[in-house]
C-alpha cells in the first residue's frame, strides 16, 4: 500500500482557510450583497510609516516622499528603467561650472489653477535653501540662488559646482510649489491642504489612519488610471501581511525579506521583487591596530560567502556587490569582480598577517539587521575571526553613526545606504572622504578622487575618477562588500505597476 504524502503545515493552513471561508460565506449570506463602497477605484497602499507632514520641503524621509511625489511634480524624474527623463523641465544643460539651465514645460497648472512657470521654480528652490524654512533636505546645499531667464527658462546658480543637480531635482529637492497659493494661505495652511501640479490631488488625512488622494483629471501627462490613492501606515509587518490577506489593503511596499517569505504560496497574494538600490556593507576601521593591515581586510572579504548569505538570510532578495556603488548608478564599473569567497584563502591571509591563532573584533549594527549580523559572525568565526557583536536599537545606532567619536561603533559596523540620485558619488561621499563622520578611511589619494567626483561638471572626468575609486576600493578593501537589496512588494495580484530602482511610490502609471 502506498503511503500518502504527508501534509505540510501550509496544506493545513489552506485547508483551514477553505473551511473557514465556507463558514464566513454562510455568515454573510444572510446579509445580502453589499454595494461596492462607491464606484471609485481606489488603490490602497500600506507602508511602514506615514509622512510627518505634508510640506514637501520639511520631509526628508522616503515614506513621506512616497506620498508627496504623487501630489507634487519634480523638475526631472527617474523612469522605471532608471533613466533621468523630463518632468516639469523638458531639457537642461550646464551653462558653466556655476550655472545649470532648465527649460520648463508650458501649459502646466497647479491644482488651484495657478500656472507653473519660471517664477514657481525660483520660489520653490529658494524657499528650500532658505535657512528660515528649516528644511532637512540638504541635496541643494551648493545652490546659491535661482535666476529667471524667461517665463519658461531658469538658471540655478551655484555657490559651489555640483555635477549632480539634474539628478538631485528628480525627487526631494525638485518638487515645485505654487508661490501664489503659499502667499495667500501661509505655510501652515499649505501643509494642511497641499497644492501641487502632480497626478493626484490631496483630499484628506486622518493621522495614523488614512491619507486620501484623488486623480487629477487635468494633469499635463494625462489622468491616472486609479481614481483614488489611499495610504496607510502599518509599522508592524505582521499587520501589514494580515492587511493584504484580509483585503484591507491592495499593496504593501518595502517588505522585509522574511516577511515576504511568509506570504509565499497564499492565494490572492502576489509577491513582486524588483532590483533595488540600497547597498549593504560593513565599514572597517582602517586605523584599527588589526584592520590597518590590508591583508586582514581582504581576508574578511574572502571569508564571507555573500551569495550564500543572500540565499539563506535574504530569501534571494539581493544582488552580490563588488563595491559600494550600486549597479544602476552613474560610474558603476561592471568588470571589477566581487572578492572571491574562499575561507582557505582568508585563513592564509590572516596567518600571513601574523594572526594564525585568530583575532577578535568589535562589530556593531542596528538590531534590524540581526540575522545578517549573525550569519556574518558565523562565517567569520569559521576562519578564526571572533566577532564581539553589539546589536543596537536603531535610534541608538543612528546616533552613534553620526557621532564625532568613531570608536563608538567599534572596529567595524554594518550599514545600509540609499543613494537615490543614482550617481556613483552618492554612497561614496559619506563613507570615503576622511572628514565625513561615517568614514573610517584616511587616504589623501581617496580624498582627492572624492573631490573630483563631487565637484567636477565634466562627465568624462568624473567617470574616470569613479572608476579609479572603485578599483582602489577593490584593492584596499576598506569595506566588507555585501549586497544590494531588492525591493519586495506584496499586492493582491490585480495591480500593474513597476517602480524604479529607488522604489519610490509614484503611482501615476499604476493600472
Amino acid at each position, binding site marked *: 500500500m502506498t503511503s500518502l504524502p504527508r501534509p505540510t503545515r501550509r496544506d493545513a493552513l489552506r485547508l*483551514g*482557510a477553505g473551511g*473557514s*471561508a465556507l*463558514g*464566513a460565506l454562510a*455568515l454573510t449570506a444572510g446579509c445580502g450583497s453589499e454595494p461596492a463602497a462607491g464606484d471609485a477605484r481606489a488603490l490602497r497602499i500600506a507602508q511602514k*510609516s506615514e509622512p*510627518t*507632514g505634508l510640506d514637501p520641503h*520639511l520631509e*526628508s524621509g522616503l515614506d513621506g516622499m512616497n506620498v508627496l511625489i504623487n501630489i507634487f511634480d519634480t523638475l526631472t524624474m527617474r523612469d522605471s528603467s532608471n533613466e533621468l527623463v523630463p518632468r516639469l523641465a523638458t531639457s537642461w544643460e550646464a551653462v558653466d561650472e556655476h550655472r545649470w539651465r532648465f527649460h520648463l514645460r508650458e501649459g502646466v497648472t497647479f491644482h488651484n489653477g495657478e500656472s507653473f512657470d519660471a517664477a514657481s521654480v525660483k520660489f520653490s528652490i529658494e524657499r528650500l535653501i532658505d*535657512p528660515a524654512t*528649516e528644511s*532637512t*533636505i*540638504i*541635496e541643494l*546645499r551648493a545652490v546659491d540662488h535661482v535666476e529667471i531667464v524667461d517665463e519658461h527658462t531658469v538658471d540655478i546658480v551655484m555657490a559651489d559646482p555640483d555635477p549632480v543637480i539634474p539628478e538631485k531635482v528628480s525627487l526631494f529637492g525638485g518638487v515645485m510649489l505654487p508661490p501664489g497659493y503659499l502667499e495667500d494661505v501661509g505655510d501652515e495652511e499649505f501643509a494642511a491642504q497641499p497644492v501641487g501640479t502632480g497626478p493626484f490631488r490631496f483630499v484628506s488625512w*486622518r*493621522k*495614523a*489612519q488614512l491619507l486620501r488622494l484623488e486623480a487629477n483629471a487635468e494633469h499635463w501627462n494625462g489622468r491616472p488610471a486609479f481614481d483614488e490613492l489611499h495610504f*496607510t*501606515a*502599518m*509599522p*508592524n509587518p*505582521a*499587520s501589514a501581511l*494580515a*492587511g493584504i*490577506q*484580509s*483585503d*484591507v489593503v491592495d499593496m504593501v511596499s518595502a517588505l522585509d525579506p522574511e516577511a515576504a517569505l511568509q506570504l509565499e504560496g497564499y492565494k490572492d497574494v502576489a509577491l513582486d521583487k524588483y532590483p533595488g538600490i540600497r547597498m549593504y556593507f560593513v565599514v572597517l576601521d582602517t586605523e584599527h591596530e588589526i584592520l590597518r593591515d590590508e591583508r586582514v581586510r581582504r581576508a574578511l572579504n574572502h571569508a564571507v560567502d555573500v551569495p550564500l548569505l543572500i540565499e539563506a538570510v535574504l530569501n534571494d532578495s539581493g544582488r552580490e556587490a563588488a563595491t559600494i556603488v550600486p549597479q544602476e548608478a552613474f560610474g558603476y564599473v561592471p568588470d571589477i569582480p566581487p572578492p572571491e569567497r574562499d575561507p582557505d584563502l582568508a585563513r592564509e591571509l590572516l596567518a600571513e598577517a601574523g594572526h594564525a591563532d585568530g583575532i577578535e573584533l568589535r562589530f556593531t549594527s542596528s538590531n534590524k539587521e540581526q540575522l545578517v549580523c549573525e550569519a556574518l559572525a558565523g562565517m567569520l568565526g569559521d576562519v578564526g575571526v571572533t566577532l564581539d557583536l553589539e546589536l543596537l*536599537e*536603531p*535610534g*541608538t545606532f*543612528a*546616533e*552613534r*553613526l*553620526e*557621532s564625532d567619536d568613531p570608536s563608538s561603533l567599534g572596529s567595524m559596523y554594518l550599514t545600509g*545606504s540609499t543613494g537615490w540620485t543614482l550617481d556613483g558619488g*552618492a554612497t561614496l*561621499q*559619506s563613507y570615503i572622504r576622511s572628514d*565625513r*563622520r*561615517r568614514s573610517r578611511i584616511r587616504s589623501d589619494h581617496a580624498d582627492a578622487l572624492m573631490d573630483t567626483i563631487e565637484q567636477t561638471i565634466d562627465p568624462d572626468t568624473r567617470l574616470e575618477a569613479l572608476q579609479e575609486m572603485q578599483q582602489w576600493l577593490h584593492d584596499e578593501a576598506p569595506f566588507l562588500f555585501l549586497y544590494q537589496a531588492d525591493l519586495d512588494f506584496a499586492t493582491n495580484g490585480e495591480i500593474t505597476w513597476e517602480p524604479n530602482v529607488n522604489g519610490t511610490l509614484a503611482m501615476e502609471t499604476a493600472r
Partner: protein
Amino acid sequence: MSTSPAPSPSSAPSAETSTATTSPTSPAPSSRRHLLRAALTRLLSSLGVLWAAVTVVFVLSRASGDPVAQLLPENANPEQVAQMQATLGLDRPLIVQYLDFLGGLVRLDLGDSLLYREPVTSLIAERIPATALLAAAALLITVVVAFLAGSIAAMRRGTGVDRTVMGAVLVGQSTPAFWVGILLVLLFGVQLRVLPAAGYGTLAHLVLPATTLAIFSVAVVARLLRSSLIEVMGQDHVRTARAKGAGEVRVLLGHSLRNASMPVITVLGLELGALLGGAILTEQIFNWPGIGRLTIDAISFRDFPLVQGTVVLFAVTFIVVNLLVDLSYAIIDPRVRTEA
C-alpha cells in the same frame, strides 16, 4: 513603565494596596477638615510624583541620543547638523532646556514636536480619543468577564468548574498580549474574515484590539475577585444570611460582592494604568491610531518634546486614577463615608 503587581491570590487582599492616607479600615476620627487636608497632601505628593517622572524622562531621553542624527540625511555635513541643533534649541545648556521645559509644563505648553513640527499638545489631543476608546472597551470587557468568571469560580469553589475557569484565566495571564493579538488577527481577520484585521472607525474594528488588551486584566481581576469573594463568603454576616435561608445567588449579589469589590477596585485602577502601557503594543499590532503608536514614533526618533508629552499624559492618568480609586472607597464602603 506599567505597573501591575500581580496580587497573590492566597493572601487576603487588604486596603494596604492603597497608597492613600485615608485608609478605609482606619477612618479618621475627626472631620471634613481632616479629609480636606489629606486630599491636599495627596495632591501635593501627586505633583511631586509628576515632577519626578518628567525629570527622569528628560534626563534619560537626552542621554539616549541626538534627534538631529535622524532628522538629517546621512550626507549632512557638520555645519548643517550644528545649524539644525541651533534651530531646534538643542545647543542650549541642558539646565536651560530643563527649566524651559518645566516652565512650559506649568503653562500646559509642551513645546513643538521635532518630528512633526506641531505643538505636542495638539498631537496628543488628536490621539487621545482612540486610546481612551480602546482602554474603556478593554476595561468594560475586564469588568464584565472578570466578575462573571470570578463569581462563578468562587461559588463553585473546588469543583471542576472552578478549576476550568481559573485554568483558562491562568492561560490568559501567562500569554503575551502581542501573541494573542496576532492569533486573533490570523483567525478572525485573515482566515474567517469576520472582523477587520486592522484599522479604526467602526465597532467591529474595536473588538479584536480591546479583547487582546483585556485578556491580561481579566485574568488578574478574576483571580483576585475569586479569592476576595471566598474570604467574604466565610464571614459572619454571610453565614447569617445563609442561615436565614438566602440562596447562593442572593448571598453573592446581596451580601458578598460589594464587600469583595474593595480590593478589586484598587487593582482595576492599577490595571487601567497597565492597559495604557499595553496599548502601546496593541495599537502597534492593530494599527490603532492612538497614543501608543505616537509614543513609539516619538521614542524611535528621539523626539524629546513628544516623548516628554506622552509621559506627562501617562503620569497624570495614573495619578488621577489613583485619586479616583481612593474616592471610590468612600462611595462603596459606608465605613469610610460615615465619618464625613
